[in-house]
């Protein structure tokens, strides 16, 4: 725990250093594509009295380089072939650097796989002097009982979601409140250590330093949910290539995240198997002719599927669009049913608003929103990422919602556990820092 705490703190420091240099790269390691954006920070924007700012407070950074490359060696959102992934990362980073004409050293990465698992934590402390101080916040966070999430897993996000003082709850910032008892709820997201280690190794091999790491379900929620959805309760379904991330937001905090290890690539592979075509052809057919609702018109729309066999009969094959939809639909339904099951487990139907936002590359299948409405509930919409300054037109589609979310995450990271001070009790007994800390708290 302390080890991770330290490494997350180190990443935060790295991020601060990158902010000072003004250039940071974000890297979305997905199953079907690897996207790299280079951000330039122009320093904090001047504060206005009403607390508003241009572009919803996102004007302090600008995308100066963007590159996408086909992902290699990634399966289910996890790195499978290290050397291949490293090459793909190199391609994306170099292209983005070339566009930005600046060298980047710090990178914030996200990935969708690695079995994310959510835990709700609760902690409670008695207040010594009847008023919540900064030290009390640190203490209550330290008092949260960490569940046994097993070996080989690591904490990715640990965000305080709610504070309660005595019987009053729903505080975002409890400092200064008067009471006797401070309670905190925290959302903990753990992932497989191996996946993080692999990603770390790849990034290190590219001479970059990791300045932060995030779950792609979380960041695509940041980018594609609008503010009131985040406030009132919504689920973001990020349908990627190899994994579908689910994150639930309420009161502007993520309270749950999971992923289904299925995505658009599985649809493609179904098509490839069903029609006996190469993977690349199947991908092309899916993107051009794909759909999930068959109509009478689709019976007559014949698709040349071809083949590279040299056999005339095989190379002249044609299928109707209905057949194609017949292959795609079961898989999409399966994914959505898995999502439904996860949402049920998470207790999504207890939220006041049950908005569902579909985003990610696979959400571009025509008719998906109607199918999702049948399975997930009526409040379904397709989400595109927020617009940020300087983002090329090609990178504004739903496939880039986690990249854009990472930009927002880089600009305004939410306070996590490791951003709070360590309470003095946690330091080793004879540590000098403990003494310093004690002096700080008591003067």
């Amino acid at each position, binding site marked *: 725990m302390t080890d991770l705490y330290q490494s997350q703190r180190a990443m935060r420091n790295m991020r601060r250093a990158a902010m000072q240099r003004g250039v940071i790269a974000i890297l979305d390691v997905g199953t079907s594509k690897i996207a790299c954006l280079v951000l330039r920070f122009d320093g904090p924007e001047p504060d206005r009295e009403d607390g508003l700012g241009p572009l919803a407070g996102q004007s302090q950074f600008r995308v100066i380089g963007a590159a996408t490359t086909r992902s290699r060696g990634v399966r289910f959102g996890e790195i499978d072939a290290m050397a291949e992934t490293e090459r793909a990362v190199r*391609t994306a980073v170099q292209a983005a650097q070339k566009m930005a*004409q600046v060298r980047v050293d710090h990178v914030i990465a996200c990935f969708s796989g690695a079995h994310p698992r959510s835990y709700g934590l609760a902690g409670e402390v008695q207040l010594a002097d009847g008023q919540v101080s900064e030290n009390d916040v640190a203490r209550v966070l330290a008092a949260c009982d960490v569940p046994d999430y097993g070996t080989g897993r690591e904490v990715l996000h640990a965000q305080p979601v709610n504070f309660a003082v005595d019987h009053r709850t729903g505080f975002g910032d409890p400092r200064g409140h008067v009471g006797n008892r401070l309670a905190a709820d925290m959302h903990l997201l753990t992932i497989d250590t191996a996946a993080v280690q692999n990603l770390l190794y790849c990034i290190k091999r590219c*001479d970059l330093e990791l300045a932060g790491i995030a779950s792609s379900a979380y960041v695509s929620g940041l980018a594609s949910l609008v503010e009131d959805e985040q406030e009132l309760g919504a689920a973001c379904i990020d349908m990627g290539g190899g994994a579908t991330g689910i994150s639930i937001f309420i009161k502007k905090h993520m309270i749950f995240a999971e992923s289904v290890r299925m995505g658009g690539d599985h649809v493609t592979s179904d098509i490839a198997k069903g029609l006996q075509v190469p993977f690349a052809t199947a991908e092309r057919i899916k993107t051009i002719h794909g759909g999930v609702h068959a109509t009478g018109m689709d019976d007559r729309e014949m698709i040349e599927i071809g083949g590279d066999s040299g056999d005339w009969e095989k190379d002249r094959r044609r299928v109707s669009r209905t057949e194609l939809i017949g292959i795609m639909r079961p898989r999409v339904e399966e994914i959505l049913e898995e999502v439904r099951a996860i949402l049920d487990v998470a207790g999504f139907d207890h939220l006041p608003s049950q908005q569902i936002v579909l985003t990610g590359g696979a959400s571009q299948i025509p008719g998906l929103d109607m199918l999702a409405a049948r399975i997930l509930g009526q409040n379904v919409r397709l989400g595109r990422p927020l617009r940020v300054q300087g983002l090329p037109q090609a990178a504004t589609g739903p496939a880039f919602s986690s990249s854009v979310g990472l930009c927002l995450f880089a600009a305004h990271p939410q306070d996590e556990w490791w951003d709070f001070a360590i309470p003095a009790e946690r330091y080793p007994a004879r540590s000098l820092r403990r003494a310093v800390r004690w002096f700080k708290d008591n003067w």
Partner: protein
Amino acid sequence: MRALKTARPDGWQDPAPSRLSYRLNRLWLTPLVRRFTRVGLPAMVLALSVGLYLQDAGRRGDLVSGFVSIKREIQDRPEFMVTLMRIDGASGPVAAGIRAMLPVQLPASSFRIDLETFRAAIAQIDAVAAVDLRIRPGGVLQVDVTERQPAILWRTASGRLEMLDALGHRVATLTAREARPDLPVIAGEGAEDRVQEALTLFAAARPLAPRLRGMVLIGERRWDLVLDRDQRVMLPEAGAVAALNRVIELDRAEDLLARDVAVVDMRNDYRPTIRLGAAAMATLRGEALDETKVNGQ
């Protein structure tokens, strides 16, 4: 046995940059490296090559002489040649002097005539008050001279006669007084510094002009008016013009200076004094004039 199709076609190239090229690319994007390669390195190579080339003394000499010859070629173009000098406003001897002072032989390139030095040299001539030099189109060196106007003659201690202008600046030496009978004469130590004062007095003494021989500065503080027949009018240090006017009035009323008076002493204005000449004194005393006696003893 081998696969019918290779996994990757022959023309396939990995789109990913190699590790080396990726690193070099990042190195090239480093600002310091970039600046060094684009500015520092070329500058260094240039400096090195120029330095190596100029290391040999013969090459340096060639370079310098080539430069000098090109410079001379340009300077000797007919457009820059000065063929004659024209002097305006100078009298004959001064003009001849200026001509003799020209440092170069005409025709010469205008680059080789240092107008400033030449102008300073001409201004050194006493007779020249101001000089204006320029090179006119057509290769003419135009010299506009303003000469000093002599206003007074100054007999120096060694007996030489110098012409001075109204400000007391020397104009020229005069060989004979008869050459300029129109100018008054002053003498005495320090007289050349008080020319303006002398000129004022001369202007005031105009009624005495036919008899006036000159003025002598006594003790560097006051003037003596010297008339013919060795008559002197001693003027005071202060109020000399008033004293002179008084003498002139006396002369007009009493015909003072026509009498045998050796000295009219006006130094004390409460008590103007006259010294009689030897003959008058003898007459006054009823004695015969002793011709052997020297006056004033």
